[in-house]
């Protein structure tokens, strides 16, 4: 019996590490898993393992991908002179769903957050600057979140690219301050992108 208790505790602890999962939700999920049939549980475990094995980060834009470079970066029909900078892969996916944007992306995997000790070196900014080295990029569209950290990140990007001769624009404030881009709908985001302004 003791061994079974240990396994449940371990499962609950693993769920608790996930974002947005409190102790109660973790327990609920753990019991849900235990009630699954063996096949269902193995399918879930396999999906996790497979995702972990196949999915990597694109060496160009840092998006999650199964091929390197990713499909977007490898597509010759896309405009390789424009890069839209976002915090998370889900935000690039949202813009992509809008179907209007033809440029490339750069995923920072986070934002500068002084209060959490997250500085410029802790997100994928160095990778972004490396993409500007050969002067083939003419515009950076900074689409970080319209909140304190997102704005700080945008400001930092503006500062460090000042001498590189690249145009830096910021998405329009169609998205309310304080909210998260991932909760915006396609059209709001499309408008924000089209109404971008020089920083």
């Amino acid at each position, binding site marked *: 019996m003791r061994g079974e208790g240990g396994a449940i505790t371990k499962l609950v602890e693993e769920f608790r590490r996930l*974002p*947005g999962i*409190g102790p109660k939700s973790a327990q609920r999920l753990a019991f849900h898993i235990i009630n699954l049939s063996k096949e269902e549980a193995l399918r879930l475990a396999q999906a996790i393992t497979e995702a972990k094995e196949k999915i990597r980060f694109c060496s160009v834009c840092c998006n999650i991908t199964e091929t390197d470079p990713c499909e977007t970066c490898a597509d010759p029909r896309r405009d390789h002179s424009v890069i839209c900078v976002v915090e998370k892969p889900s935000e690039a996916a949202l813009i992509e769903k809008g179907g209007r944007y033809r440029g490339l992306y750069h995923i920072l995997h986070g934002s*500068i*957050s*002084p*209060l*959490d*000790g*997250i*500085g*410029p*070196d802790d997100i994928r900014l160095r990778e972004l600057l490396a993409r500007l080295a050969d002067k083939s990029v003419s515009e950076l569209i900074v689409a970080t979140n319209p*909140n*304190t950290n997102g*704005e*700080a990140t945008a*400001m*930092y990007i503006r*500062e460090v690219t000042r001498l590189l001769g690249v145009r830096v624009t910021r998405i329009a404030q169609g*998205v*309310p*301050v*304080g*909210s*998260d881009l991932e*909760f*915006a*709908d396609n059209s*709001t985001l499309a408008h924000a992108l089209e109404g971008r302004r020089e920083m």
Partner: protein
Amino acid sequence: MEKTEAVVLHTYNLTESSKIVVLLTPYRGKVRAVAKGVRRTKSKFGSALEPITHVEAEIYFKDGRDLQNLSQAETLDAFPSIRSDLTRLGLASLICELMEQFAQEDEDSSALFALLLIALKTLASTTKNYASLLISFYLRLLDVSGLLPEINHCVRCRRGIEGHAYLEASAGGALCGGCSGGAGEKVYAGSLKIMQRLLTCDWTMLDRTRIAQPSADEILRALNTYIIHHTGRELRSARFLRSLPKLDRE
């Protein structure tokens, strides 16, 4: 339901749509509260729950509860000039982080609250000499918290400081060369004089008070060590500030 002035010190995402907000209030001290729906684009909170915002909040308090319920918040001052400059943002973050560490829950904190507000307001209108502002804030924070180091004379032998002294948190202040045995952070007598002045001078004087870089570095290093001795943790915002160009160095 209680209506209170507050400053948002820090926020954490809790679920898909809600956040935990850490507030400093004048009469309830530090308050941790849940704000539901705040991450949605049509949230009633708007930008009021971004860190470093002075708000009027409506909180539903229940004694003995770990997390209170935040039902409404309206922005009184979002300090736009702090947000539009990375150095000011870094300093304001440091100020809020220290407040979060020093403030207690369920305790009259009107002195801390007043200190926080004036520090943020002064920072918002400051464009230079940030080191004076930061040193002044550190000293006043320690003072309000009853932890002000003795900087007028040696804590042990009570003699005046000549040449240099060592600021040592465990001793509660400056130790002269004879009493210290070399532990603690070395500070010159001139720096101690600067600290005495910055502790009491008017806030409006700070952006006109330029401190030579070596003194500023020395004082900030000593005060950082002093504060970390009391809080037991490295300051995250200080780490961010170090990644920016040096304070006051044009």
